[in-house]
C-alpha cells in the first residue's frame, strides 16, 4: 500500500524525463530551473557590473576626462543648493529677533499708555516690552532728525507713544495672528511687524531657489548628454562584439546591460567627485564663516551637503547616468544588426 502511494506521488516527476527525449538535444538540454536561472542572472549582473568598471579604469585618461566634466556639472548646482540652504538657516535665526511695534492712540493719556504697556507684560506670548512715551519719542526724534526747531514750533506733540514687543513665537503665521489681535485693541492705533525686510529676503531666496533649480535642470541635461554621447562612442567601438553576440543568440537586454552599467558607473563616479569638491569647498569656508558669526554673536553654523543632500546628489547622478545610457543604447543598438 505504502509503496503504491509512493509510486503515485512520484509519477508526475517521472513523466518529465519520459517526455523529454524527443525534444532533448541542443541548448534546451541545459535546463535551468528557476533558482539556477536567478543565480545565473545575478552572476551575469555582477560580472557585467565589474567588467564595466574594469573597462572604465582600464582607460583612466578618458574616464577621468569624462568624470571631470560630470563632476563640474554636478558640483555647481550641488554647491549652490547648499549655499541657499545655509542662507535659509541664517535667516531662520534672524526671525527670532522679530519685533512688533504698537503705535498707541494719541488720545491716550501718558498714565493710560503706561498702564496698558504694563498689562501687556502679563501676556504669556510676549517675552519683553519696551515702552517709549510720547515725550521720550519726541526727545529721541529731535536728537536724531535735526528737526528740533520745527517740532518746537508745534504746540502739540504729534508723536504717538510706542510699545516695542519681543514676541515669544518665531513662527511667521503666529506673529501675523498676534499682530491682528493687538491691532484690534482699542488702545492701539497700529501694530506693525518688523518682518517686511525678512519677507523680501524670503522672496529673493525663492527666486534664487528657482534660478538654481533651472540651472540644476540644465546641468542635469548636460550630464545626460555627456553620458549619452560617451556611451554612444562606446557602442560604436564595440560594434563587432555586439554583432557577434547577437549572432550567437544574445537578447537585447544582454547586449544592453554592459552599457547601462557603464552609465551607472559614470554617474556614480561623477557624483562622488562632485561630493568631494563640494565638501572640501565648505570645509574651506568654515573657519572664515565662524569668525564672521562670532563677530555678530551668532550661533550660526555652516552645513555642507548633509546626509539628505549627499543621497540626493548620488541618486540623481546615478539615475541620470542610467537614463543617459539607456537612451543612447535605445537609439543606437537597434541599428546594429548582423548582416
Amino acid at each position, binding site marked *: 500500500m505504502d509503496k503504491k502511494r509512493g509510486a503515485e506521488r512520484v509519477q508526475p516527476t517521472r513523466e518529465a524525463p519520459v517526455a523529454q527525449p524527443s525534444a532533448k538535444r541542443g541548448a534546451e538540454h541545459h535546463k535551468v530551473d528557476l533558482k539556477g536561472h536567478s543565480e545565473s542572472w545575478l552572476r551575469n549582473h555582477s560580472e557585467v557590473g565589474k567588467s564595466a568598471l574594469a573597462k572604465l579604469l582600464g582607460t583612466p585618461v578618458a574616464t577621468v576626462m569624462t568624470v571631470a566634466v560630470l563632476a563640474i556639472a554636478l558640483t555647481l548646482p550641488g554647491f549652490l543648493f547648499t549655499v541657499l540652504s545655509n542662507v535659509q538657516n541664517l535667516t531662520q535665526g534672524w526671525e527670532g529677533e522679530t519685533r512688533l511695534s504698537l503705535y498707541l492712540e494719541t488720545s491716550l493719556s501718558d498714565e493710560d499708555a503706561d498702564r496698558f504697556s504694563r498689562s501687556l507684560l502679563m501676556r504669556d506670548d510676549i517675552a519683553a516690552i519696551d515702552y517709549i512715551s510720547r515725550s521720550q519719542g519726541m526727545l529721541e526724534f529731535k536728537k536724531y532728525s535735526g528737526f528740533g526747531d520745527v517740532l518746537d514750533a508745534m504746540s502739540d506733540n504729534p508723536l504717538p507713544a510706542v510699545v516695542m514687543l519681543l514676541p515669544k513665537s518665531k513662527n511667521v503665521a503666529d506673529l501675523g495672528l498676534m499682530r491682528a489681535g493687538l491691532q484690534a485693541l482699542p488702545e492701539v492705533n497700529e501694530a506693525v511687524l518688523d518682518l517686511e525686510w525678512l519677507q523680501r529676503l524670503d522672496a529673493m531666496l525663492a527666486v534664487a531657489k528657482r534660478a538654481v533649480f533651472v540651472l540644476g535642470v540644465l546641468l542635469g541635461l548636460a550630464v545626460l548628454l555627456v553620458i549619452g554621447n560617451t556611451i554612444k562612442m562606446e557602442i560604436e567601438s564595440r560594434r563587432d562584439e555586439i554583432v557577434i553576440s547577437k549572432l550567437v543568440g*544574445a537578447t537585447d537586454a544582454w547586449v544592453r546591460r554592459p552599457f547601462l552599467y557603464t552609465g551607472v558607473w559614470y554617474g556614480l563616479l561623477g557624483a562622488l567627485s562632485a561630493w568631494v569638491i563640494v565638501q572640501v569647498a565648505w570645509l574651506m569656508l568654515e573657519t572664515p564663516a565662524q569668525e564672521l558669526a562670532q563677530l555678530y554673536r551668532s550661533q550660526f553654523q555652516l552645513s555642507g551637503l548633509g546626509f539628505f543632500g549627499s543621497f540626493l546628489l548620488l541618486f540623481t547622478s546615478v539615475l541620470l547616468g542610467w537614463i543617459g545610457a539607456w537612451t543612447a543604447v535605445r537609439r543606437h543598438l537597434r541599428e546594429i544588426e548582423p548582416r
Partner: protein
Amino acid sequence: MIQFEHVSKHYDEGYDALKDVSFTLNTGELAFLTGHSGAGKSTLLKLVMLMEQPTAGHIQVGDQLLSHLTRNDIPYLRRSIGVVFQNHQLLFDRSVFDNVSLPLQICGYSPVDAARRVRAALDKVGLLNREKMNPRALSSGEQQRVGIARAIVHKPKVLLADEPTGNLDPELSEEIMRLFEQFNRVGTTVLIASHDLSLIRSMRHRMLTLKSGRLIADG
C-alpha cells in the same frame, strides 16, 4: 527540422538571391549546399537564422514558423542553431577560450560548466593548447576551427556552416568534414555550404545545388 516552402529573397539593391526554393531537411540529416559563387548559399543560411527575412515563402526551423517569430524570439532561435561563418566572425579583443565561451555566457552557464564545455569543444577541433592565445595570432585555418568550436560548444540542434573549409588544406578540410559527420551522428542536423565539389562528392551525402538562386538539384 528545416523546411523551405517556395522561398524567395530579393535584396533591395541587387537582383533575386533566391528564387522559389523548396526543400526539407529532416531532423538528424546532413546535407551539403553547393553552387557557384553568388548562387545564394550564404543567403539561404542567413534566412535560417533570421539574419535576413525572406521576400516570399515560408521557412520552418524545428516546430517554429520563422514568419511568426517576434523580434524577442530571435535570440532563442539563434541559440538552438550553431553557425560557422564564412568570415569566421571572431573577436580579437579576447582569447580563443573567451571567444568559444561567448554563446555559453549568453545562455547563462555557470563558469565551471562553461569552462568544461569550452575545453571539450576546443579539444574536438584540436586547439586545446591554443585556448589562451588571441585568435589574431592563429592561422586562418585555426581561426576557422575556433569558429567551429564556438558553433558547437552549446550542442545546438542545428549546425549551419558557410564554407567551413574555405581556408584549409585538403587534408584538414576532410578532417573538418569528418568532424561535422561526427556531430551529425549524435543527432545534430547539419547543413554545410561549400563549393569544394570533389570533397563533397567523396562523402556521399545529400547535396542541394543552387544556380543563380534556384535549387536545380537535390540528392
